[in-house]
């Protein structure tokens, strides 16, 4: 099977090449994309297989906030993802979403995920959900999160999220956990955050400006 026919050295190496290409097609037709070649390593092999694994459950995979200029303002990942992949995905998604026109629909298929996005002023809120997930309710998850930010910061703007990024994360954490909604009540979420703030204020003791700037 391996080398049929030709006895010349050349035709033998030819068929080896083919036999590798064939293997490639065999494997890729199983749905598992594997690169086979002299350079491929075990690492790549495993990594590629991991990509094609499917989780059966439905949940949010990640949420991104980015500006019209393509600056990432907030990112939250609900499944373990390698840093390199994250950067690649963010770049790719920003490009796709920013290129879309205003009247287009808020959903799109991307890789094996569904993307739900909405623009609020200069910020895009973008969620990746799974196949069976409910797109419309995800759109309202985004809206509720915006409402929470709005209520907390008092008509929120991009700058609030830049300067108080840690607060934005805390609010998101109170609202969503592990990709699932924790509490849909605006009151409960804000109560939790305000309680935390109260604790924080008690903690703080006044400091000199110099000390604040790390100059003392």
């Amino acid at each position, binding site marked *: *099977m*391996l*080398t049929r*026919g030709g006895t010349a050295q050349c035709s033998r190496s*030819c068929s080896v090449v083919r036999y*590798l*290409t*064939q*293997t490639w097609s*065999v*494997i890729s*037709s*199983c*749905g*598992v994309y594997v690169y*086979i*070649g002299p350079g491929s390593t*075990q690492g790549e*092999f*495993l990594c590629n*297989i*991991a990509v*094609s*694994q*499917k989780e059966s*459950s439905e949940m949010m995979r990640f949420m991104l906030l980015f500006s019209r200029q393509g600056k990432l303002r907030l*990112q939250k990942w*609900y499944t*373990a993802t390698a840093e390199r992949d994250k*950067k690649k995905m963010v770049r790719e998604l920003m490009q796709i979403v920013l290129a879309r026109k205003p*009247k287009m629909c808020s959903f*799109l*298929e991307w890789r094996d995920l569904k993307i739900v996005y909405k623009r609020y002023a200069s910020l895009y809120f973008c969620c990746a959900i799974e*196949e*069976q997930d*409910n*797109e*419309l*309710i995800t*759109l309202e998850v985004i809206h509720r999160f915006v409402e929470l930010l709005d209520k907390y910061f008092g008509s929120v703007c991009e700058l*609030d999220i830049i300067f*108080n990024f*840690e*607060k934005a994360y*805390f609010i998101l954490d109170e609202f969503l*956990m*592990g990709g*699932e909604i*924790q*509490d*849909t009540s605006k009151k*409960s979420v804000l109560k*939790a955050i305000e309680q*935390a*703030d109260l604790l*924080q204020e008690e903690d703080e003791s006044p*400091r000199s*400006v110099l000390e*604040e*700037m790390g100059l003392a």
Partner: protein
Amino acid sequence: MPAVSKGDGMRGLAVFISDIRNCKSKEAEVKRINKELANIRSKFKGDKALDGYSKKKYVCKLLFIFLLGHDIDFGHMEAVNLLSSNKYTEKQIGYLFISVLVNSNSDLIRLINNGIKNDLASRNPTFMNLALHCIANVGSREMAEAFASEIPRILVAGDTMDSVKQSAALCLLRLNRTSPDLVPMGEWTARVVHLLNDQHLGVVTAATSLITTLAQKSPDDFKTSISLAVARLSRIVTSASIDLQDYTYYFVAAPWLSVKLLRLLQCYPPPEDAALRSRLTECLETILNKAQEPPKSKKVQHSNAKNAVLFEAISLIIHHDSEPTLLVRACNQLGQFLQHRETNLRYLALESMCTLASSEFSHEAVKTHIETVINALKTERDVSVRQRAVDLLYAMCDRSNAKQIVAEMLSYLETADYSIREEIVLKVAILAEKYAVDYTWYVDTILNLIRIAGDYVSEEVWYRVIQIVINRDDVQGYAAKTVFEALQAPACHENLVKVGGYILGEFGNLIAGDSRSSPLVQFNLLHSKFHLCSVPTRALLLSAYIKFINLFPEVKATIQEVLRSDSQLRNADVELQQRAVEYLRLSCIASTDILATVLEEMPPFPERESSILAKLKRKKGPGNLPDIDDARRNVNGNTEHTEKTETTNKSSFSLVADLLPINRPRPASSSPIMLSAGTMGSTPSFTDLLNLNSTPTAGASLLVDVFSDSSTLASVEVSDENFPRFVCKNNGVIFENQLLQIGLKSEYRQNLGRMYVFYGNKTSTQFLSFSSSVTCSDTLKNHILSTSHLIVPSQLLHFSCGAQVQQILNIECVSDFTDAPVLNVQFRYGGTLQNIAVKLPVMLNKFFQPTEMTSQDFFQRWKQLGAPQQEVQKIFKAKHPMDTDVTKAKILGFGVALLDRVDPNAENFVGAGVIHSKNTQVGCLLRL
């Protein structure tokens, strides 16, 4: 800098952020960051112990830098220290840093776990929540090991605060997803179900998510949740008076909870209890009714929330697929949405209708919307909506509307976005085949496809049209006529030349009676395209020419002339040259009889799954593609999925050459045929033509997790009882139990090997989630066998009784080795997971190439190998009397050449061989 709102104390951080924002260039930003990093590093390393506040501030700055996209390689320790602070904000920043930046540094994880443990035990709800969030955010295995048994206790304890319960439920959900084996089921599960009755709607929401996930894994344990979920849903949906306060969202009562409850119910079939069932039906009807009511608010949030519940209800109706009235109502509702002014709703309606189309109750109802959908295809401005319209047309297609739909898709294809063209081509090809009443229409459609979008017509599509034409003699004449006409076009796509070449080569005689398509005209037409084509197409055309010589003796001289020309006989491409030489010779020396036998018409192809369908499935992934193959609409018997694996097995060996029907048994001595077999073997386009030797056409769901659970495999005992038998032979049964038989057939050539593994199902039922993989021990991986070349085409299939499935492994020997790889097989049989591990007989001696040498050479070399480490001698007692023939066979099977009359002692056996590995070749001599 904006006015900082409440509770902010970290002015240094704000100053830093402003600085960064004021940077005019990327370089300036990097410079500022590096300065800050150096500052923080010196603070952390400094002699002066930092107070909690400074630590918090610096950790926060590091976090900010990280989120800007820069790498952070220190500060983890300081963040972990913050966990043990008793100040809330410090703790909070510490946890935030960890959840954003955690790496699997095991020392750190232990310390983090310690911090979490303390906070969980603190009984301070805010601290407990922080700890639970951290576990959920990180979700690592180490954390699951440490806390998986603790969290259920917190969740069901009577005195746990509501907010902590919510966090605990979702935290447990996350752990269950990442490490399900570590979350113990127990008496807490029953109590979790009762959280559906909780007073606090936030708790119910979180608990519903958890229960849904658990119920997907073990539905029986959570059956009691059905009635509770229906009751809860009914209270939310049907009682208008109920005040849900803050859980009412833009006049919609608890939309999130409703969606989650409806999703939970989708884990189960319709309730058996009649009362419960009617209560659920009532809920679903109410939801459908509400869609008709005038909106209570003009805000989009109101309609979104309302419709989110509606779409989820429709999903449940489709899932149950048992209430025709509900299905038809759902379809009508979606029909209204198809013309809604909101793009989002049109998109979702098209998407949902796709699934409705597969229900026998609503298929007809969906079909009534065909005009609207076609219109959407033409007018929608958003490509993702148009894509949905294509999907829906594909799903609603049946015999009655196939011609219309295929025509619409073809006309859309002319202007379609490049990103979706290939998929449309595949869909058109499938529909045309599936619903073809007369095959002339099918042939026309495919040729149109090639004309309109030739570049997007993949091999599978044109292979398939050839398969079908060959298998159906009623269409052969028409096909020949049509391709002949299509080839008249001044510019035609190369794919058309391929199809044309093949079909005219086989059936050109059927139209040769007409003087306008006489043999010579046909040949000239084909040959006029020859020079514009790529090498594989030219190779195919050459084969068509030799077939012409058989079909039409009158053009023999012309064709021989063409073959004889320098551009063929001395072509730079070895393949073309070889074909030209061999075909020319064949046409000169073979008698008409031999020619007629050798160049006979191709035999029909074995029926099996359309390779196009397999391709589309691969493209879309399982479950994504509405299954149009249910029995109800399976009209054309010969195109259905008869997934006969035996035929696949056979074909992978027999279809060496496709145009020359040499796969039938014939004497090996007929030299011209052997010659062409040789040619074919090295021709990529030809052995692959019609894709017959691609093994895994099997299985509908090819994408499901193939390599999961690999951790559990380690515990399985490796079977190697049959292993020794394979030392001297390459084929046989390596494993057999009551369920499964695994056979092997292997071939080795130099340092490469290929092993065919055959799985036979001995039972009368299906194996589910069948998967197999090959693992090598570490030493084998690193030093001996190149794992990159030990390839596992991981097939995953549900294969049925009596069936046999084949898998191919490719092996390359890189350097010498002693261990053997292990084949792991996994499948479900009767609900239990079966794990089998078999040691594969891949041994060093398999890579022997026998070498012949004379007595003199042998002993000269033998003596050169005098060093002690170069010789191994073993004396063993024969268990059986030595039989010369058996021993000879064994030595040959071992892989070396048997050298006769070499040793002075005639009783001695002598062998010689070379072990080929990628790196070296090692000569081996043997005396027995």
